[in-house]
């Protein structure tokens, strides 16, 4: 665990944040003129205006309830973090360009054309202060999927070259090397070998044909490599015919997070192509939130037709395997609470899976107040943890998580998303917090009943 710095005695009762608003930087990529940036933004906003999006943008009542659901607004009281306000430029463009009354909006100047100042100001709102967690979408009385609109609005910002620099760097690296952290196929292979050795487990690599294609996230490969071994142990115990592939191993999708649909498609297609190549019946996604959203729900649309295989998050796979008796686990004598990753539970629909796994682990399970589908976001999703300048804001909202977890008084805190884990680890260090996030998958792997392998 961490040690407390003696020079700055930590007062655990104090309000945990001296909040310094994030530095205002208007990052730019490329050297386009402002005029061109505005046009690019507008064009790529417009590309997204299908009938579903249109009804959402036309239906907003300006009731402001979304603000009450958003952790960024709740923890700062800054009205600009009202979720639908983050969408304002996107909405304005819709009404001017494609809405049913667009002609009159333009003719009578009822809404202003987006300016470069607008776009620059909105960079912070669309990236630093939104994790696409989807709580706003749940509270909206009109049923508007505000979070979904944020992802679409990012398309315009990316093409205009107006996204946070750190996020752009990471996304570019992912597009160029295949991994946001620059983990090449060789490096991946190395770490897999290392884990196989270290944990004494069989890890198939580049097998020609297999039922299951397992993939990892760069965060796990780099920071939590034991996940590789844990995945292998579980799939082996279940007796699966499975493999990792160096031509399709990266589950993260920074194209999606940064707002570049081309890069998003490239990353997704790598996985799809690899799975098809080996004749896989399923892809098992790692402990990663947005990877689930990218492949399970958006993958087929990138592909342009239904996927020829099933897609499971590892927590779903484990739940199924435990429920059908394919794997068995020992009872764990601990009290445990669970942090639901937004993209897997609330947005992805796999909330129950983790709970099935937890039930089989036999722990004293303590559901957080407003856990499950209404869980507070870790604050690091949607690319926010990558954006260093947003750290003060992210730390500010983390108090919600700390309170939520502490209230359960559980021994252990588990989750099933490496990005959440990263966000929690960073904040734990910042606050000298007692809890360390553990991995649901690792707990299962550590407690597998041997007679099944």
């Amino acid at each position, binding site marked *: 665990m961490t040690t407390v710095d003696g020079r700055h005695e930590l007062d655990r009762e104090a309000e945990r944040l001296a909040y310094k608003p994030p530095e205002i930087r208007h990052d730019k990529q490329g050297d386009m003129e402002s005029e061109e940036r505005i046009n690019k933004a507008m064009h790529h906003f417009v590309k997204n205006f299908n009938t579903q999006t249109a009804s959402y943008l036309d239906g907003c*009542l300006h009731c402001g309830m979304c603000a009450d659901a958003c952790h960024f607004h709740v923890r700062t009281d800054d009205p600009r973090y009202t979720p639908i306000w983050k969408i304002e430029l996107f909405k304005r463009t819709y009404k001017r360009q494609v809405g049913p009354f667009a002609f009159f909006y333009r003719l009578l100047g009822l809404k202003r054309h987006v300016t470069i100042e607008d776009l620059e100001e909105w960079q912070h709102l669309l990236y630093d202060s939104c994790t696409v967690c989807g709580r706003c979408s749940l509270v909206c009385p009109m049923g508007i999927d505000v979070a979904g609109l944020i992802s679409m609005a990012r398309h315009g910002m990316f093409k205009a070259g107006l996204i946070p620099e750190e996020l752009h760097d990471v996304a570019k690296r992912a597009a160029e090397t295949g991994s946001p952290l620059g983990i090449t196929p060789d490096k991946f292979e190395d770490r897999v070998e290392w884990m196989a050795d270290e944990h004494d487990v069989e890890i198939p690599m580049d097998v020609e044909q297999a039922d299951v294609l397992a993939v990892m996230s760069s965060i796990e490969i780099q920071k939590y490599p034991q996940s590789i071994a844990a995945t292998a142990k579980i799939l082996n115990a279940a007796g699966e015919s499975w493999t990792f592939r160096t031509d399709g191993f990266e589950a993260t999708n920074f194209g999606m997070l940064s707002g570049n649909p081309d890069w998003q498609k490239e990353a997704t297609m790598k996985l799809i192509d690899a799975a098809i190549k080996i004749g896989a019946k399923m892809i098992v996604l790692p402990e990663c939130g947005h990877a689930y959203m990218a492949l399970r729900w958006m993958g087929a649309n990138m592909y342009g037709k239904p996927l020829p295989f099933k897609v499971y998050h590892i927590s779903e796979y484990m739940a199924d395997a435990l429920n059908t008796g394919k794997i068995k686990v020992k009872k764990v004598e601990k009290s445990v609470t669970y942090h639901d990753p937004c993209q897997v539970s609330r947005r992805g629909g796999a909330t129950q899976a983790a709970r099935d796994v937890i039930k089989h682990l036999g722990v004293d399970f303590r559901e957080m107040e407003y856990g499950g589908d209404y869980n507070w976001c870790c604050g690091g999703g949607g690319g926010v943890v990558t954006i260093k300048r947003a750290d003060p804001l992210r730390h500010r909202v983390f108090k919600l998580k700390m309170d939520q977890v502490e209230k359960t008084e559980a021994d252990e805190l588990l989750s099933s998303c490496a990005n959440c884990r990263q966000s929690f680890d960073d904040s734990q260090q910042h606050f000298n917090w007692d809890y360390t996030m553990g991995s649901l998958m690792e707990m299962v792997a550590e407690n597998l009943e041997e007679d099944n392998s």
Partner: protein
Amino acid sequence: MDLLDFARGPALQWAAYILVAGTIWRIVGITLLKEKPDYSEPRKSAGYPAALKVIWTRAFTAEPFAKATLYPKMMAYVMHIGLFAVIFLFTPHIVFFEGWTGLDWPGLPNSVIFFLGVATVVSAVALLVRRLTNPVLKLISNFDDYFSWFVSTLPVVTGLLIPVRVGLRYEDLLAVHILSVALLLIWLPFGKLGHTFLVFVTRGTTGMVFERRGAKT
């Protein structure tokens, strides 16, 4: 033609034409845009039953959000229910609808209607005050928000003035009331009052998309 004849006649007629044309224009303009097909494998089947489910459930705020949104939610409920009652349960209005649709139904006593009308106006004013003072609402509100408030509250106020009379003649107050209704009908399809018909589309869409994923709606 005096003011009342104008209000009951051409004003209401044209308001009806504009209401019908505007509503259909907006709905058609939205639904004929590109469809986004979804090829992902559904977790659950989610057709119109899912849409209907969310159309119903989104009228109620989920528990985790309820406390934070309680006050405006209550005021909005009073306003909507009051509006519904004074429009559809006041006998002279019921007679109006009967002339149009042939359907008849029992109404509430006038004193109850008057009380509900007052409650509607009070809650509407409370909501306006909130919109003018709350930082979030101040930032995101625009002309549409304020004008829509005005055209929906005016008919209730002018309707309440009729029994109160305030020294004016019944038929003049009635004419002003009917004109204010005509104004409401004319504005309805174009601003945020369009939520009258759009609410079914937005809630229904979300219901179908998220129910399909087995995700929380």
